[in-house]
């Protein structure tokens, strides 16, 4: 099923975003009100890989709505989110030939790439594959994302556990192991 969100692909100067990766707004990784929010996007058909992603806090209102994420081979995640409503806002990346790209997700609409966090926990936004969408010469570029079944939530959590040193030494390690165990039942 193609999740055609009519998203805009823009080439943009990304200097302002460069320092946002993994931004936790000064929160402690072990803060009990934190949630881990993560997802995956396969960018093999995109002009660039993903080197950063931003999650926008849409509720409650805040002066700083954008949360940076860590990104590893298409897996994007943050473990600092307090309760609230969030949406995947942008992906960005660059390549030698393609230059810098920012992939904007539409502001309107709930759905898979959004999360309402009422209780702290682990929230999976899903795994997706980038699909290019043809547009006219002077139109803004567009793309779609298609939900895919692999990698699974458990595989991605396992990857997180194995590759993120900070998680290993935090309260998240046990929570993730428990979640993987539940998913594998």
């Amino acid at each position, binding site marked *: 099923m193609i999740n055609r969100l*009519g998203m805009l692909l*823009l080439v943009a100067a990304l200097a302002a975003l460069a320092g946002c990766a993994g931004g936790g707004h000064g929160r402690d990784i072990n803060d009990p009100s934190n949630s881990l929010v993560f997802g995956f996007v396969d960018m093999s058909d995109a002009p660039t890989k993903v080197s950063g992603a931003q999650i926008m806090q849409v509720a409650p209102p805040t002066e700083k709505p954008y949360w940076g994420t860590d990104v590893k081979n298409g897996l994007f995640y943050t473990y600092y989110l307090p309760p609230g409503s969030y949406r995947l806002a942008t992906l960005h990346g660059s390549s030698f030939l393609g230059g810098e790209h920012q992939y904007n997700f539409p*502001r309107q609409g*709930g759905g898979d790439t*959004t999360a309402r966090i009422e209780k702290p926990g682990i929230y999976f936004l899903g795994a997706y594959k980038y699909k290019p969408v043809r547009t006219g*010469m002077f139109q803004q*570029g567009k793309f779609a994302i298609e939900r895919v079944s692999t990698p699974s939530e458990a595989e991605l959590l396992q990857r997180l556990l194995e590759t993120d040193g900070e998680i290993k030494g935090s309260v998240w390690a046990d929570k993730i192991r428990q979640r993987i165990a539940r998913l594998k039942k």
Partner: protein
Amino acid sequence: MIRSGLVSALAPLLVLTLAACAPPPRAPLTSLDSLGREEVVLVGKVELVPALRKGEQKIRGMVVGDFENRMYLMMDEKLRPLPEEPRIADYAGRIEALIGSTFFVRSKAVASYVLGGVLFLDIGGSSQQKAYFPGGFQVAAKPGDRAVYIGTLRYHRDEFFEITRITIADDYREASAQFEAKFGKGQILRKALLTRVKQP
């Protein structure tokens, strides 16, 4: 690659061009004397529940047009579905409704339709983001009318701008008082609330 670079460079210009080239909206009216014989003033309001919060709308840089807290009601005398992404021509004759305030706009004294609403959430930066609102409402103006009250079109939404409910409220008393203050006593403001019609 070249195309991407070109689009990037042109993006702010395209926003300006879009705004500058868009056909004019329905003109606000200050005096009934300026109405033509076959014209009517439409009186109504658009509300968003909850209202826009600080930071939900971002207007950056030099933008031609009035976007702040405004919903563009796309209108036509013919009922038709709006394209997923409205074309510039679809903006012709729009009502630029300041959300939460009564509008008084000049219109032809014939039936017309609200095809949908557009709210610009992000404009003037490197991206343009809009929220779309359902239409399918008839404005029952008719020849001979001079002023028609169409009601308050109230869109209930969640934090992701999903529309959860639409109501048409009758705030005639308030609108009538504003109408009288604006145009004087003795003018008839006929009540003809928006009605839902089936989209073709």
